[in-house]
Every structure is written in structure tokens, then in C-alpha cells.
């Protein structure tokens, strides 16, 4: 493999890493390579073997919208191949009439629902930073709840964040256990720390009662409370555990 060829592939890879949409022509030498990936394929065709690029690059075929469906097909059939489509890339491909074959009724329904969900969704954007305070710590931290998928992931992260302020492992372990819903009851009496959060209504709640997703939606800030102050909250937590219906 020629070094030059390799370089070209690498450049393309890096470039696509940043690309989220239709490649706009940039000034400078990179323009030609960016225009359409299928150009890249025909370059590889000149070598004796076709390159299996397998780079998860975005797709070869990006017919422009001016191409009519028949020509489109021909282009597709010819240069269709070797580059697997990158699912994460939004489509730059032409939207052919009637494809994919979804009934217009269904399309309209989804469009209608999407637009009404968007209104609701504006409140739930893609990031969700909340302040985290721990009693006794000199300063607060901020975490983005949306990057975690579960209480245990959050607790791991918080444990790491605040480990310098806790005495020994057992306390951070205790906090980890707190985040574990099922161990909450066992540990309420034993540990000094109670993780709590302020919800949308302004109430302070114990972490771990509700499903993770629900917690993320409603949590405004986190406070890791030290034992004595937690006495007021803990009994409420115990009641909640009893009343939990699922």
C-alpha cells in the first residue's frame, strides 16, 4: 500500500470524525476529498485490490437532490459498495419519493407527534448539570446526570469526586451502598451519609427511590448530607420504601 494512499485514507477518517452533516466545501486543498466519498472509492479502485476500509465512515452514496431517481439508481449500483454506511451520520442522501415505503398517514402522525414532543422536549435538553454538595467539603462540584445510566454509575463517579474529603474507604463505600436502592434500608441506620436531592417541586428527597430516568428528569441539585442532619429525612425515606408499589 502506498504511503500516499494511506495518508489520504487517514485524512478522510479524521475529517469525517468531525463531520455531522452534509460536507460543505471548505477552502483549500481538502475540498476535493470532501465533496463526495464515492470519489474516494474510485480512487481505491485504481489499486489492484479494492480496499476494505471498514472505518465506519459515512456512506459512499450521497446522491445530490438534483439527480433523478433513475440516474440515482445507476450511480448507486455502480459505486454502491464498499463503504459501510455510518448510522450516526444524518443523511445527506436524496430523499427519493415514496422511499422508504411508509404510508403517508403514518408519516404525518409521527411528524405531528414529533412536533408536539419537541415542545415538551425543549425542557429536557441533552445535558443536565446539577450542583453536588457534600457536607463538610470545602467546595461544590457539578455533574451531568445525562451521562450516567444508573444510580451505581452516578455513585461511582461521586465517590471518586469526593473521596478526598472522606475518611477512608468505608465511608465512600457506604455512600455507594446508599445509591443502591435495595440496600438503602439496611444502611440508613449504619452510615453517616445520606445522598439527597432537590426535586422540581423544591422538596428534598432521598436518592434512590424512583426509577433512574425519573430521577434525572426531576433532580435539580444533589446534596450528600451528613448523618445528624439526615435524621429528619431518613424516616421519610423509610416510609417511602414501604409505600413503594413496584
Amino acid at each position: 500500500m502506498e504511503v500516499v494512499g494511506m495518508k489520504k485514507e487517514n485524512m478522510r477518517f479524521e475529517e469525517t470524525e468531525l463531520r455531522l452533516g452534509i460536507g460543505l466545501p471548505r477552502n483549500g486543498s481538502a475540498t476535493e476529498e470532501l465533496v463526495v466519498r464515492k470519489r474516494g472509492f474510485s480512487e481505491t479502485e485504481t489499486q489492484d485490490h479494492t480496499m476494505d476500509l471498514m472505518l465506519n465512515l459515512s456512506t459512499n452514496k450521497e446522491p445530490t437532490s438534483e439527480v433523478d431517481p433513475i440516474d440515482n439508481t445507476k450511480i448507486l449500483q455502480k459505486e454502491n459498495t464498499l463503504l459501510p454506511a455510518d448510522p450516526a451520520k444524518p443523511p445527506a442522501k436524496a430523499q427519493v419519493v415514496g422511499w422508504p415505503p411508509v404510508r403517508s398517514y403514518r408519516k404525518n402522525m409521527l411528524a405531528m407527534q414529533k412536533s408536539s414532543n419537541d415542545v415538551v422536549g425543549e425542557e429536557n435538553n441533552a445535558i443536565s448539570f446539577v450542583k453536588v454538595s457534600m457536607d463538610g467539603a470545602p467546595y461544590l462540584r457539578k455533574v451531568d446526570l445525562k451521562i450516567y445510566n444508573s444510580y451505581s454509575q452516578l455513585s461511582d463517579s461521586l465517590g471518586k469526586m469526593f473521596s478526598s474529603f472522606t475518611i477512608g474507604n468505608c465511608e465512600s463505600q457506604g455512600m455507594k451502598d446508599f445509591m443502591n436502592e435495595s440496600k438503602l434500608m439496611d444502611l440508613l441506620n449504619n452510615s453517616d451519609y445520606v445522598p439527597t436531592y432537590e426535586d422540581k417541586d423544591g422538596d428534598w428527597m432521598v436518592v434512590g427511590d424512583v426509577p433512574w430516568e425519573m430521577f434525572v428528569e426531576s433532580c435539580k441539585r444533589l446534596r450528600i448530607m451528613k448523618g445528624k442532619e439526615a435524621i429528619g429525612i431518613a424516616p421519610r425515606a423509610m416510609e417511602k420504601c414501604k409505600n413503594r408499589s413496584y
Partner: protein
Amino acid sequence: MNYFPDEVIEHVFDYVVSHSDRNALSLVCKSWCRIERFTRQRVFIGNCYSISPERLVQRFPSLKSLTLKGKPHFADFSLVPHGWGGFVYPWIEALAKSKVGLEELRLKRMVVSDDSLELLSRSFMDFKSLVLVSCEGFTTDGLAAVAANCRSLRELDLQENEVEDHKGQWLSCFPESCTSLVSLNFACLKGEINLGALERLVARSPNLKSLRLNRSVPVDALQKILMRAPQLVDLGIGSFFHDLNSDTYAKLKATILKCKSITSLSGFLEVAPFSLAAIYPISQNLTSLNLSYAAGIQSSELIKLIRHCGKLQRLWIMDCIGDKGLGVVASSCKDLEELRVFPSAPFGNHAAVTEKGLVAISMGCPKLHSLLYFCHQMTNAALITVAKNCPNFIRFRLCILDATKPDPDTMQPLDEGFGAIVQSCKRLRRLSLSGKLTDQVFLYIGMYADQLEMLSIAFAGESDKGMLYVLNGCKKLRKLEMRDCPFGDSALLTDIGKYETMRSLWMSSCEVTVGACKTLAKKMPRLNVEIFNESEQEDCDMEDEQRVEKMYLYRTVAGKRNDAPEYVWTL
């Protein structure tokens, strides 16, 4: 049998129910044809232009139930321009004139005007059942007429229609005396509903088994309705939006617990997050679940719900369930027979499903016989595995969102994969192809798919041979539809007799020319060969060499139709 008096033969014929069997009976001899005619109660007409309404009425005077289909299937995907046809009015008019005692009318892809609904409602005293699927042209005024005038109405089933809302009170038009409702589906209506009228209607319909609400019915109304109708078997929920902490939610959960007969659930056009737990108590009874319009349900919630649905036979969902979610379906729903996975975002959705999900399903659900699967990619290996695991497919429709995508692992066309499907599934009646495909796949289809009745092709094939393999090989083919395929005149004209054995042929953006269509039309007087000329030029003269953009041909005994719009040229 000819020694028996007519009454005896009639009695025997009562046991023969299916359309094709009855059709066969009528071909045996003249007397059987006569007897069959007069005793025939249910007629199915797959193409409303294949026969005239007058001829229908003349032949079957005892008709009680009529099913009609109008526009070609590809009309669903905006490929048929507006105004093509499929008007139901002439049918209702003819039936009304002849005093046929119509009780049931089922229409698909037809144009239904308010006038036709009005005429329908006034003309048939015993009218019981109206089912409209993918129809258009009517408003809530037409529904009001049906509600008001059909005294013995049992079923009003509106599926995926485009209905103009006139903000009337159509539901209130059901008279107090109407207590016969068994099925009411208005999920596709966009407008508001008189909730009080709905509740009262449900309260006085003790036989109500199926109820599908639209989005405008809120949860508190739903709860009251369910209290009145715990006998429901099929429920379509409109809005499921509520505060989880509210009394309403608590009441709803309690009410749902009482609905032990519900086996079919659909809708959720609007959903509150995390609210599906209310459904868990009845999930284990569900045999049919349609969440394909429930855009508000997160995949994690969906998966949790499905774990409870051990008896599911039919599942319609969106692809946000993901491959993993399909794995859960495979392990939870061992009785699954029909699966439809729709695209939640037809273009470039990273959460879409792939071949992995389908393979998982095939391994867990051996009873699967109907599939509609919109996916991101497919491999030959996966299709071969699926073919081995599920030899019982009757309907297999695969749609790879990227229409000409090859097998991503091998970069090969998907010929071998589909070939395996048709070879293994000996009972296959309907097949839709997608992905990169050469003539080879059509050779396989021609060789093995001998029960195939309907084939849909897009962006596939290499030469006329492809189409010929299919026309020659598939003896039971009834409907063939293709778009953007390189099939041309030679393929079209090689076996013209074939088209009289089929219901219809659709070819768009292929390589057939005007001249070939003209030749075909001339040689086959019992076919209507329609060409759509959508060009702006008024005086565009169709040269023989010109390529035809859209052609639709169908067998008919009714001759050229007289309601075709300007752009349709019947050759």
C-alpha cells in the same frame, strides 16, 4: 350432485365460505353457477375497476357484504397522483338502486365522499358494519350521517384514514336507541370528541368489544369509559398523559385491573413517561400489541412492558426498540406470529434495528409467519439463518432504509439471502425485497416461490431477465409492483397472456416505453393499460420511444373507465 334438488345444493354451499372456493363452485356448471349466484352473500373485489357495479348487483342479488379495494398499493407511498380514482359513490348508488340488502361495506384505498356516506346510511335498513382503511374524501359530517341513520350499526371501524374534521358533534348523532355497537374505532380522527356523548354511548352498548379512541380523549375520560366497559376485548388508548402522582392515575390503575378481557391493546398516541406500569397487570393477557404510533414511549419502558407480554401473537412497534429490545421480544414472546417494526425516523436513525434483531427474533419465535421489518442493514448470513429458523413465513417484507445497500459484511448483493427465504418458506404468499439485488434473486423467486401472490420490488435487478424469471416462474402471482428497476419492453411483452391471470401490474421509473404499452393494450382488450402523464406540457404527444414514468395495468371486464382524470391515459 346434479340429481339433488336445488335446496340441497344450496344447503351444501352454505358451508363453503371462502371467496376462492365459492368462485370455484361457480365454474363447475351452469346450474351450480346459478345456485351459487343467488346464495352468495359475501363478495370481495380486489380492484374496483375490474367489474362494473351494475354487473355485480346483477350477478349477486343476495349480496350482504362487499369488500372493495381502489387505488394501487403504491398510492400509499405518494406514487399515485391525486384524483386517480377509486370512488365508492357509483357502487353505493348501484346497490341502493337494486335494493340489495347491504349489511357490510369494507373499503380500502378508496375515495369516500360525505355524499356516499349519506346515501349509504339512508339506503340500507339493516346496515351493520362499515370498515374504512386508508380512505380519504370524507369529513366528520359523513360520519354523523352514518351515526344518525344506521339503526342497527354494529361496527364503525376507521383505520388510518384522512378525515377532515368539521368540529361537528358526530358522536352525539348516535341516537339513544342505538345500543348495538360492538366495535368503534375512531383513532385516526384528529379533532375533539364530545366526551360526555362518548361515555353515554359506551354505557348503553353492552356488546361493545372493541373501542379505539383518538388522541383527544384524556385519561380521566378513559378511566370513566373503562369503568363502563370492563368487557372490552380490544382497546385503543388515545392519550395516556397524566401526572403519576395524581388520583386519576391511581383510579386508572385500579380500573385497568378490572379489564381482564382485554387481549388487544393499541394507540398511546400521547404518553406520560414511566406510566406504562399501569398496564402491567393486563399485559400477560395480551395477544396483540400495537405501539407503532407511540412515539412517546422510551425503549427502556417498552422493553420492560414486553417482558410481561408472554402470550403476544402480534406485535407492531417502532425501531427505537433496537436489536437488544428485539432480543427481549424473542425471549419473552414465544408465541409471536406477526411482527412489524416501523422506522421512527426514516432517515439515518442510529437507534434503528439491524439484522441482529431479526436473527434474534427468528431464534426465539419459531411460529413467526408475518413480518414487516424496516431496518438499517441486512446480511445474507442473517437471512439464511432466519430462513432456517422460520420456515413458516407467509408474508415476508423487508425494507432496508438505504434501498440499494448490499450485505455490509461481504459487500455482496442480498440475492442469496432472499433466495434462502423463498426456498425454505414454501408457503410464502407475499414478498417485498430491498437492498442490493441482481437478476439472480428473481431467478430464485421464479424457481422456488410457487405460492407467491404478491411481489414488491424497488431499485433491484439488472436486466429484463429478472422480470421474466418472475413472470414465468410464479404461477400464482396476482400482484406485481415495481419501481426504479431496469425492466423494459422486452420483459413487458414476452408473456402478455400472463397479465390476465393477475390482478394488476405496476411499473414506475422502469424502462418500458409508450410504444410497448400501446402494443400490449392493443393485443389484450381485457386489460386496462393506464399511463400517467404528469408532465406540465398540455400538448405533449406521447412518442412511442418515450419512456413511461408510471404504468398501471389490470385485468377487467368493465372496459375503459370513465372517471379517469386528465393525466391518466388508458391506451
